[in-house]
């Protein structure tokens, strides 16, 4: 360390500790973070239509007259919890779509227990998503639903659509994991050399502790360190603090992932890229993306550091839909769905696309 840097850091430290207000602020931050469990999220009113050991199907209460004929099913990812779609009123993906007159159902995955370790992608696609769509069709007395998936949920929605196309009016994929050979993220890099068989020979499900180590590798300083500096500087702004805590709560609310599901995910999608090569077997069927002909809207974040934009964009060349659109936005993986930017720029365009498809 050169003298200039050493002096600069020493001065900063001394100036910081001299001011007792700074120490109080640190104590305040510690207190806030220790009570993060109490932060309320998911305030939009809903009814639980169905609940099993592994999922809940939620139906959101309409807030205006329905303008779109088909019900929308949102399939969330298996990572963290689905309340990111309804984090707070002014950043709620759900609320903004309800405001546009869309009838929304949400597939909310529950945390798998040890005895769910054999639950596979086949179960998620051919039983759970299938079951929910059949139920929605019955309730709404319709033959088709609009399907929307986020991240892993988008990939599973693509699998479902390729198998049961007649049930789908249109498909919206948000940051889908598709062509992993084009993925340059740290997650892909770590997955590439993972001996998933060995990991699952000891753990029943893929443990949340290992998922944390992956997240901690994503922008470790710009997000990992800098966000706490920003919190420190904005501690008197109540609205900022509440927003920060909600996101922070979500970031650390990580369930494990069912063992067999994650085994196939790592091997077939990240290591062998079978999904993009139309060679992935789910249950008794080979998933063939070129079978998809329904209208497709693919939404991608330019600054996504969890799924590389190119990995998602590849989808538009793999499906056979004649009506396909790609929307890309200058934001990140989470900013795409839960931010002020998303409310102003993403959701109005998504709603508009739905109404015309």
């Amino acid at each position, binding site marked *: 360390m050169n003298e200039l*840097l050493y002096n600069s850091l020493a001065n900063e430290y001394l100036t910081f500790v001299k001011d007792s207000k700074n120490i109080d602020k640190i104590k305040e931050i510690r207190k806030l973070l220790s009570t993060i469990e109490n932060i309320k999220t998911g305030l939009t009113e809903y009814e639980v239509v169905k609940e099993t050991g592994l999922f809940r199907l939620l139906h959101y209460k309409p807030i205006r007259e329905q303008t779109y004929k088909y019900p929308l099913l949102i399939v969330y990812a298996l990572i963290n919890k689905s309340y990111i779609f309804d984090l707070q009123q002014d950043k709620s993906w759900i609320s903004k779509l309800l405001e546009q007159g869309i009838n929304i159902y949400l597939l909310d995955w529950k945390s798998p227990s040890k*005895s769910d*370790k054999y639950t596979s992608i086949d*179960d998620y696609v051919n039983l759970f998503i299938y*079951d929910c769509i059949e139920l929605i069709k019955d309730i709404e007395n319709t033959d088709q639903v609009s399907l929307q998936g986020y991240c892993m949920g988008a990939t599973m929605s693509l699998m479902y659509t390729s198998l049961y196309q007649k049930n789908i009016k249109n498909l919206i994929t948000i940051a889908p994991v598709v062509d992993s050979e084009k993925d340059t993220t*740290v997650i892909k890099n770590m997955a590439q050399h993972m001996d998933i068989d*060995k990991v699952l020979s000891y753990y029943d499900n893929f443990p949340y502790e290992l998922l944390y180590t992956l997240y901690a*590798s994503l922008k470790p300083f710009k997000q990992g360190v800098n966000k706490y500096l920003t919190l420190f500087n904005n501690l008197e702004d109540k609205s900022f603090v509440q927003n920060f805590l909600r996101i922070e709560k979500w970031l650390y609310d990580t369930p494990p992932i069912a063992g067999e599901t994650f085994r196939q995910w790592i091997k077939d999608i990240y290591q062998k890229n079978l999904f993009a090569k139309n060679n992935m077997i789910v249950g008794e069927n080979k998933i063939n993306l070129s079978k998809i002909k329904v209208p497709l809207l693919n939404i991608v974040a330019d600054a996504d550091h969890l799924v590389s934009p190119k990995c998602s964009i590849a989808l538009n060349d793999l499906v056979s839909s004649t009506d396909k659109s790609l929307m890309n936005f200058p934001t990140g993986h989470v900013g795409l769905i839960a931010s002020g930017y998303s409310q102003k720029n993403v959701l109005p365009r998504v709603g508009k696309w739905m109404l015309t498809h």
Partner: protein
Amino acid sequence: MQLKNNDNGKEQNNNIGFNNVNYGGMTDINDDNRFKSVFENFFKQISELNSLTTFGPFTSLINDPNTNIKTLTEHGNLLIKYQSFLNLYLSRMVNAYFLALNKVSSLIDEKKPEDIRKIIINTFEDVYSAMLESSEFSISYNNLLNSIIDINKSYQKFFDSNQIAFRQQISKEEKDLLFYNLYEIKKLSMEIKKKLNEKKDE
């Protein structure tokens, strides 16, 4: 101890084990042989005692000491392997730290504290991200993870085979079989429901 690359490009630690540990010339061959023969005699006697059915519960407590020694030796080898992977992992982290620090030192000049803070965060981000995105780091991390799993499995194996209390508990294999049967039952019932629905729709 030597680190070599296997066919998959993974770093593997070969020739490690208690048999290869050099004790710094403190023992000679005669001492080794004497030590070995004392233990062999001891195990032989224990094995003979074990064969006496009249010993009753005592037998189960000292059951097969040779197996236990073998398990512990294997466990020691795993710990050595873990240490070498941990060293590699930590050396990558430490190298990145010093590289970032040198870069920061060359960039700061006479700047304001806020600018220096920004330079530190950006430089550390760049250096660490480059490391985390490299396949060398991924291999190193996954080797370390695998060796931790091997150690945990070795503990499990030792306890499963030795402690009376643990023998009362269900083993991992038995538990997995139960979970699998449970899963099959659940899946079957959902598939029957699905088929019934499909028939209804027809």
